[in-house]
């Protein structure tokens, strides 16, 4: 997993410690801790994982092993507007791949990457559960249904 280096501010460190504390520094709660930390920072840089490891008294290699196991966790900051294309089966048979290709083409990034200006990041997810609207695209929290490759431009326009 590629990652970026960051310098954590004092209050960031305090925040991570506080999160660990709410879970009683219990190593069994590692995944819950990581969820909280990611929702606070938006991603899980190495520095955050190191503090979590120290607080929960587990090897940082193990924290990293867990972070890289679950696709929900990321070590890369997401774009300002994270785009997720549902690649569940229902969306797939209704053309999600072509929609994804169009996003890749227009943004000129591949899945898991962020545009150089930090505006959009592109990702895939498996089944939002809105199969009636397939293919589905999410930008941030907003769901777009029945998206066609032609509609991609219009979606992106909303965020310009």
């Amino acid at each position: 997993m590629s990652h970026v280096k960051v310098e954590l501010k004092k209050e960031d460190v305090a925040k991570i410690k506080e999160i660990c504390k709410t879970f009683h520094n219990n190593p069994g709660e590692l995944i819950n801790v990581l969820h909280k930390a990611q929702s606070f920072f938006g991603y899980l840089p190495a520095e955050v994982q190191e503090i979590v490891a120290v607080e929960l008294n587990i090897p940082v290699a193990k924290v990293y092993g867990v972070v890289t196991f679950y696709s929900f966790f990321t070590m890369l900051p997401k774009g300002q507007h994270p785009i997720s294309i549902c690649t569940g089966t229902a969306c797939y048979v209704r053309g999600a791949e072509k929609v994804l290709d169009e996003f890749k083409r227009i943004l000129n990034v591949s899945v898991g990457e962020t545009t150089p200006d930090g505006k959009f990041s592109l990702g895939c997810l498996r089944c939002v559960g809105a199969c009636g609207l397939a293919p589905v695209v999410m930008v941030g929290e907003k769901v777009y249904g029945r998206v066609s490759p032609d509609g991609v431009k219009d979606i992106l326009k909303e965020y310009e």
Partner: protein
Amino acid sequence: MHMLVCGGTGCRASASDAIVETLNSELAAKGMENEVQVIMTGCFGFCEKGPIVKILPDNTFYTQVTPADSAEIVAEHIVKGRKVNRLLYTDPENKEHISDSKHMGFYKKQLRIALRNCGVINPENVEEYIARDGYQAIGKVFEMGAQATIEQMKKSGLRGRGGGGFPTGLKWEIASKNHADQKYVVCNADEGDPGAFMDRSILEGDPHSVIEAMTINGFCIGATKGLVYIRAEYPLAIKRLQIAIDQAREYGLLGKDILGSGFDFDIELRYGAGAFVCGEETALIHSMEGERGEPTVKPPFPAESGYLGKPTNVNNVETFANIPVIILKGAEWFSAIGSEKSKGTKVFALAGKINNVGLIEVPMGTTLREVIYEIGGGIKNGKKFKAVQTGGPSGGCLTEKHLDTPIDYDNLLAVGSMMGSGGMIVMDEDDCMVSVAKFYLEFTVEESCGKCSPCRIGNKRLHELLERITKGEGTMEDLDRLRNLSHVIKDSSLCGLGQTSPNPVLSTLDNFYDEYVAHVTERKCPAGQCKSLMQYVIDQEACVGCTACARNCPVNAIAGDRKKPHVIDTSICIKCGACIEKCKFNAISIQ
């Protein structure tokens, strides 16, 4: 009076628009346009017999109506009040005409047990659940005792709805017999099958049924703690479940001394983080313990050594949702529903190229045909049915010849698919089955935990072989390798993921072998899906030489003089499709 005309895609394709028009004009002719209103409705879900016209308030149901029938319906039914018998639905069993849709077979195809409260109650209000007999089952269980309840569960014949179909009562009995100072009840809500969302719908629509069932489970096996392992990607379900837990605590339905029974039980949430393999119970347990969600060899089963090494019973959301009703209505009631070895109902997320995409619940033993054509309303856009995929990445693609198979655990397994968690994806003639198999393998490769070699490497190799075939680089030996590799992966993988991941390959090899052969020997994709096997060709007759295609080609693969037919250099063409879009003369086609 109202006349409801089906406006579903299927019926519309058979001229229901025209029916609305002719009905309106007939009514106008009779001067009744103000008394009778013609309404276009959503799909009735009976496209085989479409177009449908239903007359309210007497509920008369006309099938296979044509615009030409409008005059007769208006003249006879509306004016004279006599039903048009020839258009009524004929019962296939006794050949009798049935006029009231309430008495028609297909309307009884669905039976909502697990979904009984979904779309009926407000999930954020415990009182609405209580008003519908909520939490009475737990009261009854306290009176019956744990042993008797487990007996009831066994007698009901309920099997795990997460995919494997293990008898729930038996699972409870094993967990109850293992002694320990602490036991756990776990609800598996990590619905990872891409294309299944029934568990999410239940948690969003009826969270208390799961809470009540987990409490019952806890009482039966002697566990005081429950954990729900839920996908972090389901924020609404998490929110509603948390509200429900809080309300249940407030009403004393969770916590200490529930209903004065002396039994304590409480529930905590644990979040999944996006790993399909965590649907496997040992992997799920490791994930709850803060570890990588890798499965471990069974035995020991969770019932002996599960969460934190304690006896643990894991059931999924849908299984739990069935339980309060079984307790209240009795095992006999439940076991009367369904097929011989699979009792009760199953919820399916019906999706894909079908008209009525949605969440359905049918008794076990319902046929695929009934689900697809009568409930699902048939194939979208009037296309031809090709395959139905059940069981998600663990299941297989079934075809025309399987349509009359009654759906249950054993039948689906016998035809090379499986129940799985209940995804049901319908595919039409435009879907390439090699690509579909490749799609599922891509999923498995991404979701394999990597612990055992057959799954970690084997699925990757299967995917590579499929990739070669869809690119037209496959050989007949590759097809044999696909089959052998699939069998070995199934036979030797550590957990359920690997043991089922080749099913999409094997079932498509079995049912669509010709399609594979076409990719290999003719280098052709019969469904026209595989990009590498397509060629863009300009029809020399139709092309007028407008140059629009050549100007829009991103790689300059099109040449030709103005006003003269153009030609595509297929060695340069990247098959982006831009030329087809720009051609106003339909001169470009894919071959």
